[in-house]
């Protein structure tokens, strides 16, 4: 595990698999562009809603918020996922892309879809053009966006489906050449994640393709808002795991190496991913605890599934920390806790991932409160909720992605990481900024401050904070937002700076050590993808079949509601 082996060589993923490296670089480039714009939008929101600095009209806040949500939660995360999964498949199966044309096709479809949705959102700033998509990340009807927003989303999802086919095809070809072998851990993780994704995107695909696109074109008069919410959340929770599972892949396979150790247990990692496939989807009703029209029993079932979904994360916490501890002890670490000092905190890739994991532990707690059926009354749609997901997707995922970039970007570009000092500061700055912003958001939520609101300052009442004051909460959110933006800027400087320099020895060892307990120790059934998929489908059918059946009893479109705003002329009529 010496870094010297690579010093002085140009050996990198880029040289072994130039086509794959090229595709991954492009996916990362789109991802980071979305991160930059989405992050800037986040800063505008943090300053606007706290009243610290307002330079846009409050109605445009919602355009900014839609952009922030879609660009960060869909474009940044999923383009990055496609990059890291493509790298995982190629690197772990040691096979180049099966067909560069096919790969480029899905990248193009995803990019086209994102651009269409993005144009619809940004057009919300310009009153004169009849495009808008001020519908936020959840696009709950009857609020309606321009058809290109929905068509763009549909294309984007189709692109990810094709990406999955690409990875599966590579795996099947590999299996043909290596009969009887269990797939490498990274490949296994990619395949399980994609099975979950196929199962869960069905919900949003049905919502968008069969209801929202025809509705936005004027072909359907009205849609049932509750049914649409239900289809959205069928997808809306698994998408959270779609962001998280690449981070888990990184924590399981790369983080232990960066800590100077190796993975504790390969079979356990596989079990964790099986649990994610099986349990991620039949939980969506926990986003609808406060919705009328859904019997309590279905909510309770979703809650039980959600609570059991804690299990893979709790197991992960143990395995990943133990893998780090193993590294620290090999580097001379001792004691119950003093071994923590023997971890490479000065390495930006390691520091980013470890801090991300720490914040995920905190986010885990607020997630339990979100998931607790009746205690959800306390926090539903308050600032607590964005406080929670800025710890999870906004840090556990985002900071892990930034961390792995410090390690992978040199291998993809064949260039040495630039601005190391900035890269070293960056994760800590993010950690401090997020600590300020997120703790304040949680406390603000307990005080009842709503999320998704441009000016949460009211005439009829005052918020009362349980801890601290409302004024102090606002300042912490604003200051946290500023520090996070600063951290993000440092990250982009490092990435762009590295991309622009000439090639040199990269000083990164791309080899990943095998696990202490290897895949050969796993029970054979663990690699039976079909078995796990069938179980997942059965659980989904049990959790969603009865409630969906009751919802459509009174008709697919009843109780229905025509679109808002109604000022938009249906495109269909314009075309005719």
């Amino acid at each position: 595990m010496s870094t010297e082996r690579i010093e002085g060589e140009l050996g990198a993923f880029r040289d072994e698999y130039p086509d794959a490296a090229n595709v991954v670089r492009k996916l990362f480039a789109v991802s980071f562009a979305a991160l930059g714009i989405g992050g800037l939008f986040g800063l505008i929101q943090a300053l606007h809603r706290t009243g610290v600095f307002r330079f846009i009209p409050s109605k445009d806040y919602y355009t900014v918020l839609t952009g922030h949500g879609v660009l960060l939660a869909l474009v940044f995360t999923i383009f990055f996922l496609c990059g890291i999964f493509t790298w995982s498949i190629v690197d772990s199966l040691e096979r180049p892309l099966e067909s560069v044309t096919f790969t480029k096709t899905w990248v193009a479809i995803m990019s086209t879809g994102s651009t269409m949705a993005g144009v619809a959102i940004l057009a919300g700033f310009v009153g004169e053009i009849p495009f808008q998509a001020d519908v936020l990340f959840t696009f709950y009807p009857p609020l309606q966006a321009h058809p290109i927003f929905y068509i763009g989303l549909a294309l984007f999802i189709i692109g990810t489906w094709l990406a999955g086919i690409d990875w599966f095809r590579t795996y099947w070809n590999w299996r043909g050449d290596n009969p009887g072998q269990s797939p490498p851990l990274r490949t296994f993780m990619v395949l399980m994640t994609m099975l979950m994704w196929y199962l869960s995107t069905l919900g949003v695909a049905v919502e968008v393709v069969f209801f929202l696109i025809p509705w936005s074109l004027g072909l359907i008069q009205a849609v049932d808002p509750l049914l649409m919410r239900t289809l959205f959340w069928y997808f809306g929770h698994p998408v959270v795991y779609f962001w998280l599972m690449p981070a888990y892949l990184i924590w399981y396979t790369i983080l232990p190496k960066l800590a100077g150790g190796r993975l504790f247990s390969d079979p356990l990692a596989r079990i964790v991913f099986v649990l994610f496939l099986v349990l991620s989807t039949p939980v969506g009703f926990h986003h609808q605890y406060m919705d009328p029209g859904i019997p309590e029993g279905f909510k309770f079932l979703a809650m039980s599934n959600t609570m059991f979904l804690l299990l893979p994360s709790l197991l992960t916490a143990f395995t990943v920390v133990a893998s780090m501890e193993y590294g620290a002890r090999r580097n001379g670490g001792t004691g119950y806790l003093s071994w923590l000092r023997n971890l490479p905190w000065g390495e930006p890739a390691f520091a980013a991932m470890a801090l991300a994991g720490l914040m995920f532990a905190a986010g885990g707690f607020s997630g339990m409160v979100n998931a607790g059926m009746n205690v959800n009354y306390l926090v539903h749609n308050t600032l607590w909720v964005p406080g929670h997901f800025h710890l999870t997707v906004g840090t556990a995922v985002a900071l892990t992605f930034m961390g792995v970039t410090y390690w992978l970007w040199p291998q993809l570009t064949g260039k040495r990481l630039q601005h190391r000092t900035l890269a070293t500061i960056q994760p800590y700055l993010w950690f401090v900024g997020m600590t300020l912003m997120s703790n304040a958001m949680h406390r603000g939520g307990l005080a009842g401050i709503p999320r998704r609101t441009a000016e949460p300052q009211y005439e009829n009442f005052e918020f009362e904070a349980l801890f601290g004051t409302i004024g102090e909460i606002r300042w912490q959110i604003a200051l946290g937002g500023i520090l996070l933006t600063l951290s993000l800027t440092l990250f982009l400087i490092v990435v762009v700076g590295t991309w622009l320099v000439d090639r040199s020895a990269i000083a990164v060892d791309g080899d990943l050590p095998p696990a202490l307990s290897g895949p050969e120790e796993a029970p054979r059934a663990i690699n039976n993808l079909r078995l796990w998929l069938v179980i997942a489908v059965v659980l989904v059918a049990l959790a969603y079949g009865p409630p969906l059946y009751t919802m459509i009893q009174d008709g697919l479109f009843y109780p229905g509601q025509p679109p808002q705003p109604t000022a938009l002329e249906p495109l269909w009529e314009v075309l005719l």
Partner: protein
Amino acid sequence: MHIHRFEKVWLALALVFILGLISTIAYGAVGPGIEMIDAEGGTVDPQNLDETEFADPGVEQVGEDEYEVYVVAKQFSFEPGTPANGVIRVPANSEVTFYVTSQDVVHGFEVVGTNLNTMAIPGQVSKMTVEFGDAATYGIVCNEYCGAAHHAMEGRIVVVPESEYEGPGATNATSGNETTTNASVAAAQQVAGSATEVTA
């Protein structure tokens, strides 16, 4: 398959913890009797609210200390609730059942600093019963994005001392249906009177 004994212990602990979380929630349901918003409120046709119980939303007295409040959420106010539509006035120490729906898009109905919190979804009725104690004023906020002026959507619930409560009719600024309003005012005055006697 080899699993370290620490991991076995952790797995067991994690399962106990998860069951503990579920038990806490179940306790909340059976102990303090917290109910979830569910399908009990039924559905309405959001395009024809005029033909439903939401035609003339407001407070109604249905028993000695029992009231019903029909609330329509709309861009960008609550009716009743937002002062321009008349705030919601109920007497102290009463049991109040809220029926909340929306006439346009999805809204939120959150009584700030309390556990009264629901989504107002077109076509669905949120039915929630709460017990008000002493006189107090509560803020209502829309906590789901509902359009360009979402941040202006707010309201108030005023819990007045029983002796000062003048009946539900007094709350309804937009009295669309004269007969019901008058009838409920009369009924409420009777009850308010009897309540005063009891306290005196």
